[in-house]
């Protein structure tokens, strides 16, 4: 069944991206906007925009009933949730389906299976997808040492009753474990009233790698290569690349297979991402989680494969068979995305909403901008501070990095503070050029000095 009219339940750049993708497929669009987004670019480009509620997200973009009511009242046959907001709420998917609206996403059941940490781990286990080696409950230091010898050092102790770093200790040798075990157990007992510990392999230097997939809901799963999203601040990604240049071909291939192995048994439908932690020292990867939605960083995968993932999402949501085969998907070149955020890195990333007085974006071959901003646009204070994504594509990594360096130099945003100066510093850093970073690199090496530097 071909989609006729699509309800877009999101805002910002992804709303605009979805509206345009739908348009190019000949699908009409109705966009939900809050009172703060009446004049957004997506509202102008959609066939119709309906104001669903006041600015705060809980009264607008997070109100499932309002969204489904509006989709029904405007005679839409499908709803695209974008990312964030309600995109991974199983009850929302269910509400759409029970009201006869196609949810452009996985089934509610799939969302539950992969969204819950325990059931996702259970799925990984039955699918033979590697996870961080760990133990069950441990009684004594001696038992810990015996198990650590199997897991391999370094290991980390964790409290079974809670997190937050209490009861956690990294042990690099058996001796470390002998001296630290009782102390950690005591700390856990103090914090949670339960001193039970378990062990996990500790990943000293990690990369965040993830595989982009698309499932047709019948058990067919395609992958579109992997991404490296190791440049993070407080688990927020800031720079993403495809492919993950650090991986060997053998590991890369196993990574792709692991993602497919995980999602094929549940007949996953929709675009999705399987996230892994890559242990640089052991050259192994471990399953972390599934993101059952289109992701912010999907454009880098599109750039190296030449597909439009949003269009494919709409096609599988409509129940169309996959028009692509895995053999037809080739990863070529290297793509990098940086997230432009309205936060001031010089002021500890304080949000900086306000009026954009100048928005001069870079253009040129291999440069793509996914953004709904423009000269005179207002960045409202109610939502996520990401205001755009700058994406470049090059023949190889060095080529792409150079293109990004140039594009960032050309980018001018005035009226609000942004992270552009930080992004410029990152792509000019020798470690980044040499691709010698890991998930803590940004916080450890750049941010401590960057906050003190003046201007840029």
């Amino acid at each position, binding site marked *: 069944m071909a989609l006729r009219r699509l309800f877009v339940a999101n805002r910002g750049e992804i709303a605009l991206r979805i509206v345009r993708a739908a348009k190019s497929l000949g699908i009409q669009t109705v966009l939900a906007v*809050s*009172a703060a987004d*009446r*004049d957004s670019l997506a*509202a*102008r480009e*959609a*066939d*119709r*925009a*309906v*104001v*669903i*509620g*006041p600015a705060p997200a809980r*009264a*607008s973009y997070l*109100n499932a*009933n*309002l969204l*489904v*009511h*509006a989709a029904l*009242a*405007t005679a839409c046959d499908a709803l695209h949730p974008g990312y964030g907001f309600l995109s991974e709420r199983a009850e929302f998917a269910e509400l759409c389906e029970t009201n006869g609206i196609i949810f452009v996403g996985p089934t509610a059941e799939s969302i539950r299976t992969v969204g819950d940490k325990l059931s996702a781990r259970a799925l990984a286990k039955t699918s033979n997808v590697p996870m961080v080696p760990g133990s069950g409950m441990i009684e004594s230091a001696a038992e810990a040492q015996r198990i650590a010898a199997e897991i391999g050092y370094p290991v980390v102790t964790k409290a079974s009753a809670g997190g937050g770093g209490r009861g956690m200790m990294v042990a690099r040798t058996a001796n470390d474990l002998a001296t630290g075990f009782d102390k950690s157990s005591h700390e856990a007992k103090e914090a949670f009233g339960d001193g039970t510990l378990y062990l996990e392999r500790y990943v000293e230097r990690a990369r965040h790698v993830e595989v982009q997939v698309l499932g047709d809901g019948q058990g067919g799963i395609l992958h579109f290569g992997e991404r490296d999203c190791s440049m993070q601040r407080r688990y927020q990604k800031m720079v993403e690349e495809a492919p993950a240049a650090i991986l060997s071909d053998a590991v890369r291939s196993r990574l792709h297979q692991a993602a497919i192995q995980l999602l094929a048994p549940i007949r996953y439908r929709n675009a999705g991402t399987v996230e892994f932690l890559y242990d640089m020292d052991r050259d192994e990867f471990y399953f972390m989680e599934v993101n059952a939605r289109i992701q912010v960083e999907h454009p880098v995968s599109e750039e190296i494969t030449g597909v439009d993932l949003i269009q494919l999402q709409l096609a599988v949501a409509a129940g169309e068979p996959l028009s692509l085969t895995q053999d037809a998907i080739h990863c070529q070149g290297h793509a990098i995305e940086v997230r432009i955020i309205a936060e001031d890195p010089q002021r500890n990333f304080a949000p900086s909403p306000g009026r954009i007085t100048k928005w001069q974006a870079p253009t040129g071959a291999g440069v793509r901008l996914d953004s709904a901003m423009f000269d005179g646009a207002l960045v409202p204070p109610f939502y996520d501070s990401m205001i755009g994504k700058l994406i470049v594509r090059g023949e190889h990594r060095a080529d792409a990095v150079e293109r990004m360096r140039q594009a960032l130099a050309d980018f001018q945003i005035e009226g609000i503070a942004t992270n552009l100066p930080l992004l410029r510093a990152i792509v000019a850093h020798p470690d980044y050029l040499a691709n010698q970073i890991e998930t803590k690199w940004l916080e450890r090496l750049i941010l401590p000095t960057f906050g003190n530097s003046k201007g840029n």
Partner: protein
Amino acid sequence: MTEVKPEDVEALVEIFDQSDWSELRIASSNFQLYLSKDAAQRDRHRVAVSTPAAPSMSPQRAAGSLSVQHTTAASTHAAAPADAAIPDGMQAVRAPSLGTFYLAPKPGAAPFVTVGQRVEPETEICIIEVMKLFTAVRAGVRGIVRRILVADAQMVEFDQPLILIEPAD
């Protein structure tokens, strides 16, 4: 109201001129007309003829007793005319959220209010339904219901004017 033609305005002025009325006020979502035989009142209500789409008329008429304001929706897409002009002396009751507007508590029942009816701030004047959840909307002001802007069972958007009430002194 559909497109207002200059001839329509001229016809209204004609009727007004020949009547014994001292004032005439007409308003819809995209059009406002105020006529008065009192020059002082006209000056109080005078507003710029705001768009080129405003009806043009004979200079004699234009300079005379007319004050016309044409409000056009900001864009054809921004469906909620939240900023649509509310006539002077009127207060709009607006939609608290998107939903379906109902004038009666159930199909076939008498409407909560009718034009000309007096209401108190606590008077329920309509309901907004969102996925079978019904929210009563109250007048919020003491006055007289002057106009119901939305047809029964229509979808309304957040902040959309629903009913005009002329507050009582």
